[in-house]
């Protein structure tokens, strides 16, 4: 996988994970063009499209588009399963996940993705294992958090 993008129906980016080295400018250009292309697709069209020299696999879940760019030798159908697995993980973690969860807890969305994929490939094919690892990592983060700090709710 070269990159994964999550965006809303209005084209707002909610998550971007890049597995290839590109400049900020290039990333912005790719994002803009690809988002436009995918949003222009009609509901009855298939989940695959050829874009530049890449294969793009996308699927819409409620108000969010999950969009991956894969290489020519990669299997499009299993990529759909990868996307679905990630959504399942988010859903289990947040409890019936919705777009707002991803907006307000975007770091968590990244942590979950990074526990599932590494360098663009699946690390663990067991849903249970990935969720357990995230749970443990969260506990560790909780332990490490300095106790005396609290937010000023009035500012």
């Amino acid at each position, binding site marked *: 996988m070269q990159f994964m993008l999550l965006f809303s129906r209005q084209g707002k980016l909610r998550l971007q994970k890049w597995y290839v080295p590109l400049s900020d400018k290039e990333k912005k250009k790719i994002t803009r063009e690809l988002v436009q292309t995918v949003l222009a697709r009609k509901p009855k*069209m298939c989940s695959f499209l050829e874009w530049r020299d890449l294969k793009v696999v996308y699927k819409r879940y409620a108000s969010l588009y999950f969009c991956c760019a894969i290489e020519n030798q990669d299997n499009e159908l299993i990529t*759909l*399963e990868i996307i679905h697995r990630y959504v399942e993980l988010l859903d289990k973690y947040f409890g019936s996940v919705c777009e707002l969860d991803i907006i307000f807890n975007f*770091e968590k969305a990244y942590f979950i993705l990074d526990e599932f994929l*590494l360098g663009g490939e699946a*690390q663990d094919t067991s849903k249970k294992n990935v969720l357990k690892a995230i749970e443990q*990592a969260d506990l560790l983060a909780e332990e*490490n958090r300095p106790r*005396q700090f609290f937010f000023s709710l009035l500012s």
Partner: protein
Amino acid sequence: FPKGRSSSLMIRVIRGARTQGEERGVIQRECAAIRAQFRQADNGTRSHNLAKLLYVHMLGYPAHFGQMECVRLIASPRYNEKRVGYLGAMMLLDEKQDASLLITNSIKNDLSHSSQYVQSLALCTLGCMGSAEMCRDLAPEIDRLLRASNSYIKKKAALCAVHIVRKVPELGELFTPASRSLLSEKNHGVLHGAVVLITELCERNPETLEQFRKAVPELVQIMKGLVMSGYSPEHNVAGISDPFLQVRILRLLRILGRNNETASDAVNDLLAQVATNTDSSKTAGSAVLYETVLTVMDIKSESGLRVLAVNILGRFLLNNDRNIRYISMTSLQKIVQTDHNAVQRHRGTIVDCLKDQDASVKRRALELSLALVSAVNIRSLMKELLLFLSSCPPELRAHTTSGIFNAAERYAPSQRWHIDTILHVLTTAGGDVRDETVPNLIQLITTATELHCYTVHKLYRALIADISVQSLVQVACWCIGEYGDLLLRGECEETEPVQVAEDDVLDALETVLQSHMSSPATRGFALTATMKLSTRITHNVDRIRSIVSIYGSCIDVELQQRAVEYNALFKKYDHMRAAVLERMPVIDKSSPGHTNGESAGGSIKEMEPTKRTQEVFSYLDMKYRLDAPLDHVTRPGKTLGPNYRLFMTFVSHSHPPQSVQLQMKAPSGDVIPAHGLGQVTQTVLLNNPNKVSLKMRVRVCYTSQDFVCQDTVQIDSFPSPAW
């Protein structure tokens, strides 16, 4: 506020902004606050502030000032800070930036951290954005982790090694031994990582590939275990046991079996087993079957297995899920040449997909259908293609008409079928055909000599129905001009004859001439056709004379040019009119662009291609215009029709002698090869009963490489025994 808002609060404020300008303002204030916080000593807020900055960055705003903060946080002993620091590094730093080198040391330390979750952060970051230099530095560490650690770390180390090998291929050798032993692990995550790593190593190094061929039996065993095992809740996806791992193993087997009999033999049975035992009702199973098909087609499989694979693709075509139908067609496209007969068996289903809602599925179905055309199925398949053309999306029309013409040309069962097919296309999609279609069709019509009557009838009927499609109108005019007499005869063997009078036919042509829908080229065709009819009809020649004379003052220069010359043909050269306008001979097909290899025998770069007449005008060399240049009339490259003529006129002191008669025969050809390699002869019969002394000027008009040229030669005396 000294400590800053929580990130949730900040996000809420940003989202509350009503305009882009307002949002920018909010962002600026927040960034200023974050910057201030960064400058302060450690007060426990750094990770929250970096998180806020990362959100701002995702909205598209600059966040460079956070880079050093990432470096600092990564070095922190606190896990929550490390975690955000590494996330920040993956988002804000890339290998092109110098700051990325600064984290190499932290990564190195964290790779040996006592907590596996810290090790995980380091592995993930290195595997995501590690530069070549960082990779070289840390490769030995990764290798160590591949050998001696728990499954949680091993699986990550394997994928990290994949990234390293992609960045620095030479390091592949380092990981080869460890990856081999990973295949005996039971943990699916580790196995999956190992297979991905081995795939990467084999793709890059032929020697490594040779080594790993020995692992084929082991891989087959693992695969068999997955396919035949009972329900495993941990790895089950829609009834398939770990489809992710299955797909990767199949892909590795493909690479190992390619071009190798032994390896291919060893997996034949397995592939058959997977193909028959995998349930394809859901995507997971279809993904495995898809990968199986790809592997079967790429290695040296038995023919029975290949047929099985094609049948899987055929079944996919009937699947309700359009993704699976699409995948099937892309795969079929890849094998339609090599496994033509097997794919032919599914032609019916493929043709049905022409009616699919999805434009990409339609396009694939079109490509496949065109690839499947053969002499056997041309009639039925063409019916489907023509049906498709009538409702196909606009972006596919040009490609469809092109494909139809090619197929028709290669496999036409009869000339009449061929002509009918082209006419059908012109009627349905005449606006989307290539320019050469008109001369090509005309050439085809001239060769089908027994069908002239039939053709002119069909075209006349088409013309009076609709004059908007230029390509169709041009061919129709040309036909009516040439074979209008057959139309007027009122009899036809092949089709219902029309009962028309000369006026009706002239009406049709005049409608074309006058219509604002007709392009200048089309009007040229109509005028020439009208003129030609002057020798094919008997009653209404005067009407033609008046049309021609009216167009002598037409604004369009080309039309005016012709009209003036035709006028002259009526007046001064009436005795030659019949000869000039007589029936065209059969035109030899010299298709542009196709014969470069055949006739010339050379490459397309040949500097002097065959002189070829693509357009010659019915010019008359009139005495009073002998010195007029041709340039203003002729624009290079415009195709007006495959007519050509050589012209001769008399030159005499006063006016051409009445007693002398000229009859021009058809020339021996219309193409003169370059480099003096051939010639064309045209015979002219001169009847000079009074034995008048004659001088003649001969003008030859021809086209060479799209430029119209002319040569003039004067014959001052004829040999005396001639008369």
